[in-house]
């Protein structure tokens, strides 16, 4: 099949979990990568080597282990910076996950003074297809500051409804936040065009790249400044990295202007009981002992992706997604919620199967080793928009093979027969 990763079978050998069998000796068909990705051996090994040979706290330690651990941790930052083409490595801040990164921005905007402050009468704009992690922080921010939350609705063909963009984005708008790729619909949003419009009115643009970073080559430095986000987040565990680490990238001027979020060790310049002054970025936003082994693992993870080539990963994702859309179309009563054109979508495909509830679909699939997600995928508003309470979602990644898609389609047929449908 044209477009697959070269040497896919060799690549799969990098992921130990893919050799697992499940209850009844069934091999694993992991199609839940939009939820969390599997980890290659090199990521696990990097963390183990760190813990077994170089473990120490960072920044503060004067000894050899401390120097090694600090170098490894900061090297993780360098690798992440290069993975997203960050204009400066100091603009890369480690958080615990994408959710914390989004909350960091929303919280500090509540306390910000000057230009960035969000207060009474200001507007924050999000979209109806966001993950809860890009809705709730802004609800909290606007509720707490007296600002207004507004949002782009969705069209019947699963895109952002941009018809009222000029009402939503005007001089009152301080923040426009949106997901690059939807984790439910798969839709790829026109981030550049929206950023351009938002920048015209001086609004800050926050992009949730949690589903984009795993699939799409990102080069921030190469973007036209007018179209470049001001802040962008993603999460380690979806880019073949470990849990416990996320990334906030921000334009230096913005990060410099934001007040601190969490206070404590490492984020200070000097502390007196009466008052403290704060370190520069990135440390200003990294209070306490950071996720050290996790940064080492994430560094190895983005290096692994870069080694495969993000263009190749992207091509693979599209190829598998196209193949999956074709396969799903053969299943009677199956309806995909999301764009059907691979050029306009990512790899998460949510669907309904007439007459079987998504949990029951997932359960029967699981008995065949096929792991998918069922539920609202932390996107209740998008589900509500399309009048459904939950869906089944398959999501592939760089290690997914066409025959795994065949297994999914077969298992769906089996599900229909199990529930005695036609």
């Amino acid at each position, binding site marked *: 099949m044209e477009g697959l990763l070269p040497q896919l079978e060799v690549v799969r050998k990098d992921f130990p979990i893919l050799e697992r069998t499940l209850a009844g000796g069934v091999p694993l068909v992991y199609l839940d990568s939009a939820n969390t990705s599997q980890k290659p051996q090199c990521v696990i090994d990097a963390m183990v080597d760190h813990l077994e040979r170089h473990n120490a706290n960072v920044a503060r330690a004067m000894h050899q282990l401390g120097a090694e651990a600090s170098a490894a941790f900061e090297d993780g930052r360098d690798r992440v910076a290069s993975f997203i083409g960050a204009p400066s490595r100091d603009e890369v801040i480690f958080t615990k996950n994408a959710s914390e990164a989004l909350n960091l921005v929303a919280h500090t905007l509540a306390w910000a003074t000057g230009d960035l402050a969000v207060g009474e009468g200001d507007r924050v704009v999000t979209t109806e297809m966001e993950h809860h992690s890009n809705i709730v922080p802004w609800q909290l921010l606007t509720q707490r500051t007296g600002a207004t939350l507004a949002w782009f609705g969705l069209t019947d063909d699963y895109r952002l409804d941009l018809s009222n963009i000029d009402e939503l984005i005007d001089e009152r708008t301080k923040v426009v936040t949106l997901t690059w790729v939807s984790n439910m619909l798969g839709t790829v949003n026109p981030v550049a065009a929206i950023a351009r419009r938002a920048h015209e009115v001086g609004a800050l643009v926050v992009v949730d790249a949690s589903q984009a970073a795993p699939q799409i080559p990102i080069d921030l430095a190469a973007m036209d400044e007018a179209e470049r986000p001001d802040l962008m987040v993603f999460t380690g565990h979806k880019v073949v990295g470990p849990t416990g680490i996320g990334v906030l990238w921000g334009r230096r001027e913005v990060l410099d202007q934001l007040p601190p979020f969490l206070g404590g060790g490492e984020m200070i310049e000097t502390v007196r009981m009466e008052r403290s002054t704060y370190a520069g970025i990135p440390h200003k936003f990294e209070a306490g002992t950071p996720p050290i082994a996790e940064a080492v693992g994430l560094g190895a993870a983005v290096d692994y992706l870069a080694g495969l080539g993000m263009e190749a990963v992207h091509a693979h994702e599209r190829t598998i997604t196209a193949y999956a859309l074709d396969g799903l179309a053969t299943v009677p009563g199956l309806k995909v919620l999301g764009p059907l054109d691979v050029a306009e979508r990512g790899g998460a495909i949510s669907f309904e199967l007439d007459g079987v*509830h998504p949990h029951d679909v997932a359960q029967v699939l699981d*008995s065949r080793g096929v792991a998918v997600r069922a*539920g*609202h995928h932390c996107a*209740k508003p998008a589900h509500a928009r399309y009048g459904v*309470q*939950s869906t089944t979602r398959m999501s592939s990644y760089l290690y997914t093979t066409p025959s795994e898609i065949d297994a999914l389609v077969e298992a769906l047929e089996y599900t229909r027969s*199990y529930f005695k449908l036609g």
Partner: protein
Amino acid sequence: MTAQDLDALYQEIILDHYKNPHNKGLREPHEAEVHHVNPTCGDEVTLRVHLTGEPGAETVADVSYDAVGCSISQASASVLTDLVIGRPVDEAMEIHESFLTLMQGKGTVEPDEDVLEDGIAFAGVAKFPARVKCALLSWMAWKDATARVIEEKA
């Protein structure tokens, strides 16, 4: 999970209740209505309770509900209503207790058919931690609603 486990989970009784749920649809009269959600998956139930009788000796006169959810959660609501409607609250609470014990037993509890009737079909669910919440959704809602009525009367 093997095909066998699957059959243990989806007992005929469960699929029957799922296809033909008993007592579904909200009805009057009722003294309390609650809305419970399974945040993990979004399953929802709105459930009403109508009690009659003296404080301390109430009877479950009616339970009605509306729900969206999977076969397990739908069937379990249906079985719940069969089991509790018409019983003294005390007895119904004991049945609730037995069902809870069964569900939380990780598959090690032997269900008592005399007490749980069709409810014994859920024994297989106890082996699926992710599905236990589905089976318990309406039961928790019922307990909550009943407690509210009793509190308000007191």
